[in-house]
């Protein structure tokens, strides 16, 4: 996903001189082709995230569209005030490309795991928050972003995710529905958890149960109103997210459910715990521990009383 994103930035920069790539200290070879081909549009600014967010805000105010990539926690935690004031208060067309969403960097410990990034970013007025599910959706999102001058925060997965959004051509901010409109089970998710949820859906289908998965790549406005029939007909709605339980997709869903008077007694939640992990291992280890693998999601759904 990250490679596709950076390649897309390069492609966009060739066509549009407003597009700039800015990295912190991303390692030798990162976007070397762009660095050589478009040196004036390529910046590797070092380990100075607070400065970088201010720097790209100044560039954006003068008409550029900077795409800034580094590890998610270094964007969202280190430079929070700069994002809030320099970018969001000024409503500048900056794209924050956040590497390693969720537990991608589990082996590196809690300083590197972006477990609350969506919550932090959604709380900033005007900042548009996205979690695409695969490289194809990421590319479509970045291409569409050129026509939108609002600030963006975009969460990346680890990379190499199975492409599951092939049926959807352009990025249109809308939820993506996988399945029929009258399933008993609706699984709501965002980002790279979509693949695990689709895996759980297949396991359910193997035992004759139909499930619908709804993926929300755009988190500011879930636009659930278009899917009221699906929500109302479901016996169980399960929200699955690689994020702490508060402030992410589940919180957004509850806001919408209350606003649209959708009952919540049949809504459940699978997420990361509201705690820093002191385990390492792999992202998959943490998915398994917290019930976020396709098998664990499947099992949780089977355990729900009414299924």
């Amino acid at each position, binding site marked *: 996903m990250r490679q596709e994103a950076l390649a897309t930035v390069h492609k966009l920069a060739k066509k549009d001189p407003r597009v700039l790539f800015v990295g912190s200290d991303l390692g030798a070879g990162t976007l070397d082709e762009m660095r050589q081909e478009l040196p004036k549009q390529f910046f590797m600014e070092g380990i100075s995230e607070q400065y970088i967010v*201010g720097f790209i*805000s*100044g560039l954006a*105010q003068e008409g550029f569209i900077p795409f800034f990539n580094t590890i998610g926690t270094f964007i969202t935690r280190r430079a929070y*005030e*700069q994002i809030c004031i320099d970018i969001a208060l000024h409503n500048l067309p900056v794209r924050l490309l956040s590497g390693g969403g969720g537990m991608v960097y589990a082996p590196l410990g809690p300083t590197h795991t972006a477990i609350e990034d969506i919550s932090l970013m959604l709380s900033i007025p005007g900042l548009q928050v996205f979690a695409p599910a695969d490289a194809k959706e990421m590319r479509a999102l970045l291409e569409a972003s050129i026509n939108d001058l609002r600030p963006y925060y975009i969460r990346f997965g680890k990379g190499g995710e199975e492409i599951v959004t092939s049926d959807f051509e352009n990025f249109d901010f809308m939820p993506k529905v996988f399945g029929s409109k009258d399933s008993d089970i609706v699984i709501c998710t965002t980002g790279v958890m979509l693949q695990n949820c689709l895996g759980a859906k297949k396991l359910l289908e193997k035992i004759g149960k139909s499930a619908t998965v709804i993926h929300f790549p755009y988190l500011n406005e879930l636009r659930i109103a278009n899917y009221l029939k699906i929500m109302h007909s479901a016996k169980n709605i399960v929200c699955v997210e690689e994020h702490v339980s508060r402030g992410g997709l589940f919180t957004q869903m509850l806001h919408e459910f209350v606003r649209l008077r959708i009952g919540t007694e049949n809504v459940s939640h699978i997420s990361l715990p509201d705690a820093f992990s002191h385990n390492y291992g792999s992202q998959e280890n943490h998915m398994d521990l917290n019930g976020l693998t396709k098998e664990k999601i499947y099992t949780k759904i089977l355990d729900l009383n009414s299924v």
Partner: protein
Amino acid sequence: MDIDFAKLADDIVLDDRSRFLRSLILDALEGGGRGHLSSALSLLEIVRVLYDDILSHDPEVPLLKSRDRFILSKGHGCLGLFAVMADHGYFSKELLKTFCTFDSKLGGHPERFTLPGVEFSTGSLGHGFSVGIGMAMAARLKQENWRTYILMGDGELNEGSVWEAAMHASQHNLDSLTVIIDFNQKQASGTSDLIVSLSPLAEKFISFGFEVREVNGHDVSDLANQLKKQPLTNGKPKAIIAHTIKGKGIISAENSSSWHHKAKITKEEIGILRKELQIQ
């Protein structure tokens, strides 16, 4: 022999224009009943010289493409900026009296979208320098000739982001960028030396790759002369350390921590400040 800039700043007798601009600050202070008075008095000559003699700007067209960019990174000194902007015709002087009131264009810190002519919203310290580097880089990328000026307080230099920015300004050889330090050596809680010593400040900026000049920050001729020398050295950003007196020009505000920020200011207090300004 080392020049005693602090004494020079102290010795300066303000001219009529500086006293008039201070009277505008008092108008705003009276209207709002609050404000960072002594910070504004500290930086007033710097902002005056910028708008009078240095910046390419047009109050009729605040977003003129070719304008020089000026960021008051020390946003709490905005009473000084507002006085100068009003005097240049960016808005009516009557508006000063609405300072900090509910629907005023003039808040306790300057806001870009509220007041045309404010380049960037500031308030939290340590932001303007990095943003200004981005603007200066934009001018270079677009091959435009406007310049970027950032005014910071010395207390603001406590922020780590300032020194991140300082490294990058010289890394990029941004000689169209000038940072000005309002070096009054006072912060809200006391003297800078007692809180976080900045000494030796000039050497610090030199070691970060800046061309550095020290000036008497209340001497409008000295300020104008140093600010007009652009660039001092090709490829180097410029740092002007302007030695100032916090509260300059109004004796009860001079070096007074109680006037760093004050709320619920009474008419009697304003009367005293006006009298002191007249006898300065």
